[in-house]
């Protein structure tokens, strides 16, 4: 493309509406049918939204919150806010009222666009804590017809007002877009906050467009590409892929019908470009494994046989490396019988490029998808860097690295091992937090990621863990908890794990079983149980988990660096770790400090050699009420390999 591309998001929208007015821009499944909006239509809708917001007094510098599942109108609202010189502030839709209240106050939100009654109820509940919240606009009017509250109205009404406004002032929209500047803040994304309260990360048009551009060129994205947008809009990954890159390239964004229908919708759309955090890939694999267990013997045998073939040569074939003729033929047969149908079931038949990011992915999990022919790659980045620091190039995939720095991004490793980043994609500031900004951005313009890593011989970045999480065992061996946990979590039966060890002589772990997989397993064995707590404490389940832990131990023992990281003792928690109880972040990362503090007695019991421990925990239900759950937890030993040899050597 020879001409200079537009430099703000509203200008990008006008550009797409002009160059490809009739191409589908957004799709949403509604009442069972995929509805389509072309780029020209989207420009019209954004204009109605922007003018409607203007009629409510929204002006330059205002922040507009959007809360809800991925709905086209919420994406358009971002562009509408940016048109008026405002800032889009997408929020996590499953956040409880209290968390929302913090962000609403911190960002000084006066205007909020929400999806439905559920979100309206939440906002009304916290309205007295957020007196500045003057306007609540809802997308779906269902159940809201009797709500008469000041400032509460439907998005339809606002857009109608916007159309009237446009009829009176036809030049308003275009003028506003013309007056926008690329160095203005376009979006504010709140960090998930593994540590402390969330901070608003301010990103400019220029930074996000730069990030979008680099990713799009890197993977040669085309307007014909399709993406399924189902991850929280407040997550930087979704903002980059579903908003910034879609606006930049002009590909089609598809919004699923509801959170529960993603699997079906994915199969119907067949996206060519896909991204998901490791957790989603993990869950998909778990489902596949469960279904295979239930399949007939022939199918099961075929699956296991060809998965063995795929493990042996699948990844090499997709990377274009030399593979023997016999394996090639076997793989082709497997592709016909197993991998192809499997990709089809997963909705991954048309995928050209898939990314995972957001957390470290277990190498085994990663290898599984690549070996069945899905071009899954890793990218590395943070909210503060528009998500795009390192990308893995096609055919240069390594399982344990995240690839070389993206074009135009400079990456340096500090003396302590921390990864530092410099480039156009960095945040402008943390909103109203000069102290935090100064801490993260140093004098020479480097952003401190807080991740520990190093470059390998090929110049690919390898991330080990959060810099603050990496520690040493009492014996001096390296302890990287995420790495251990990912090993454990590759088992379909283990949903979550927390490893402990720094300053101790050995590693112990908490485990959450996967209710779906273990429940299914129990059912097949006619094992009766009343709920999670009961199932988790069954002898049989402990045996099952012990096998998984010992398998992980065997893999850890294979790497001399990690020999000491084998899990000696473990227990299965009586409740699932939950973001509602602050144990996980909304992006489902473990809050280590909090978990360690909350379950201190359990950790003591793990290390003191006890065989069981009583615990009572407070839990919070989805509607905000609290309850108590208590149990006697059993503690089990797991066999470790070569530990004696290692200890006597030390």
């Amino acid at each position, binding site marked *: 493309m020879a001409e200079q591309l537009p430099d703000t998001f509203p200008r990008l929208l006008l550009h797409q509406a002009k160059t490809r007015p009739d191409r589908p821009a957004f799709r949403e499944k*509604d009442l069972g049918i995929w509805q389509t909006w072309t780029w020209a239509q989207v420009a019209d809708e954004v204009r109605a939204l922007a003018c409607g917001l203007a009629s409510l007094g929204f002006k330059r510098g205002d922040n507009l919150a959007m809360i809800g599942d991925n709905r086209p109108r919420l994406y358009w609202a971002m562009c509408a806010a940016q048109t008026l010189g405002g800032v889009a502030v997408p929020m996590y839709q499953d956040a409880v009222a209290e968390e929302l209240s913090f962000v609403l106050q911190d960002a000084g939100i006066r205007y909020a666009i929400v999806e439905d009654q559920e979100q309206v109820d939440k906002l009304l509940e916290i309205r007295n804590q957020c007196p500045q919240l003057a306007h609540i606009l809802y997308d779906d009017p269902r159940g809201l017809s*009797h709500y008469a509250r000041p400032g509460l109205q439907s998005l339809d009404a606002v857009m109608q007002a916007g159309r009237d406004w446009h009829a009176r002032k036809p030049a308003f929209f275009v003028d506003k877009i013309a007056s926008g500047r690329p160095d203005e803040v376009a979006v504010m994304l709140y960090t998930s906050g593994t540590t402390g309260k969330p901070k608003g990360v301010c990103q400019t048009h220029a930074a996000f467009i730069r990030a979008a551009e680099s990713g799009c060129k890197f993977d040669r994205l085309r307007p014909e590409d399709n993406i399924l947008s189902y991850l929280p809009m407040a997550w930087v990954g979704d903002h980059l892929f579903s908003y910034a890159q879609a606006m930049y390239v002009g590909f089609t964004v598809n919004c699923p019908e509801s959170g529960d229908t993603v699997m079906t919708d994915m199969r119907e759309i067949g996206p060519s470009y896909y991204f998901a955090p490791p957790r989603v890939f993990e869950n998909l694999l778990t489902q596949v494994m469960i279904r295979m267990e239930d399949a007939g013997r022939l199918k099961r045998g075929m699956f296991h046989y060809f998965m063995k073939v795929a493990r042996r040569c699948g990844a090499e074939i997709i990377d274009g490396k030399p593979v023997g003729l016999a394996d090639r033929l076997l793989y082709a047969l497997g592709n016909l019988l197993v991998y192809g149908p499997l990709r089809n079931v997963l909705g991954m038949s048309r995928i050209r490029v898939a990314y995972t990011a957001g957390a470290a992915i277990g190498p085994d999990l990663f290898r599984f998808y690549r070996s069945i022919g899905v071009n899954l790659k890793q990218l590395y980045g943070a909210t503060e860097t528009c998500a795009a620091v390192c990308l893995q190039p096609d055919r240069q995939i390594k399982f344990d690295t995240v690839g070389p720095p993206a074009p135009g991004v400079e990456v340096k490793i500090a003396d302590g091992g921390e990864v530092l980043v410099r480039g156009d994609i960095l945040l402008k500031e943390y909103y109203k937090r000069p102290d935090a900004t100064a801490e993260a951005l140093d004098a020479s313009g480097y952003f401190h990621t807080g991740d520990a890593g190093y470059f390998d011989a090929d110049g690919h970045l390898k991330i080990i863990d959060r810099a603050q999480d990496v520690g040493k065992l009492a014996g001096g061996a390296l302890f990287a908890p995420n790495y251990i946990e990912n090993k454990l979590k590759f088992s379909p039966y283990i949903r979550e794990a927390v490893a402990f060890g720094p300053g101790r002589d050995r590693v112990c772990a908490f485990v959450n079983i996967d209710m779906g997989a273990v429940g299914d397993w129990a059912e097949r064995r006619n094992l009766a149980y009343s709920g999670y707590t009961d199932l988790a404490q069954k002898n049989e389940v402990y045996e099952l988990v012990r096998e998984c832990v010992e398998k992980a131990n065997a893999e850890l023992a294979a790497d001399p660096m990690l020999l000491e990281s084998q899990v000696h003792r473990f227990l299965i928690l009586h409740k699932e770790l939950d973001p509602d109880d602050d144990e996980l972040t909304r992006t489902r990362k473990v809050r280590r400090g909090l978990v360690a503090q909350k379950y201190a007695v359990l950790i003591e019991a793990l290390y003191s050699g006890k065989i069981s421990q009583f615990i009572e925990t407070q839990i919070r*239900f989805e509607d905000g009420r609290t309850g108590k759950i208590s149990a006697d937890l059993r503690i089990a030993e797991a066999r470790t390999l070569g530990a004696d040899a290692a200890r006597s050597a030390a």
Partner: protein
Amino acid sequence: MTDARRTGKPILTVEEVSLSFGGVKALQGVSFDVLEHEIRAIIGPNGAGKSSMLNVINGVYHPQQGTIAFKGRKRHDVDPHEAAQQGIARTFQNIALFRGMTVLDNIMTGRNLKMKCNFLQQALYWGSAQREELEHRAKVEEIVDFLEIQHIRKTPVGRLPYGLQKRVELGRALAAEPTMLLLDEPMSGMNLEEKQDMSRFILDVNDQFGTTIVLIEHDMSVVMDISDRVVVLNYGRKIADGTPDEVRANPAVIDAYLGVAH
């Protein structure tokens, strides 16, 4: 968060209805009325005659004495299909769905009365039959959306958990676009969260479609939150009738539920 809803004139009047099976007197001289757009609950301990009352209203049982007036038309007895034609739909205490059929198909059966094409036209799926089918399907999709069961659209009902089956059954009743909906223990066997969901749906149905709802429930707490007025039966007799607060304070009701010390 329900703001005041408008209720209208009586849509159903039950007068002095008595029903017995041989020597067992299931209902004895029960009278009450149901207003338009109202949520009316019938509660009572086990064996109080709640289900019998519901079965009398939609014509499964024919009372020996008394009359029932629906939309001003007085009658002594009526057959279930006539009741359905007049706009009365119902769900059952023990789910009565077609277990091997998908959720969509099950709800589609609720449209049965609205289908005008004959069997042959439908089998050929041509012309007006095709148009009609599409219209019905659109209507069914609205219900699927309303009840938030998009993810199980194509799942056979037999494979669904109990709570969802109950929701599908409600969907089938809604598909008939009834003026009055009879719900027989819509929340039995559900956990707290499912009960809350179901309550929400019942309120939404009442609110969105203006459907009059008569529901039987065993569990007092839920009913009291969502009903406008409550009838209490015990041993086939009406022992109380009024708003939830009035009923809750009524000594006869407390005795019936908690037992009396003699």
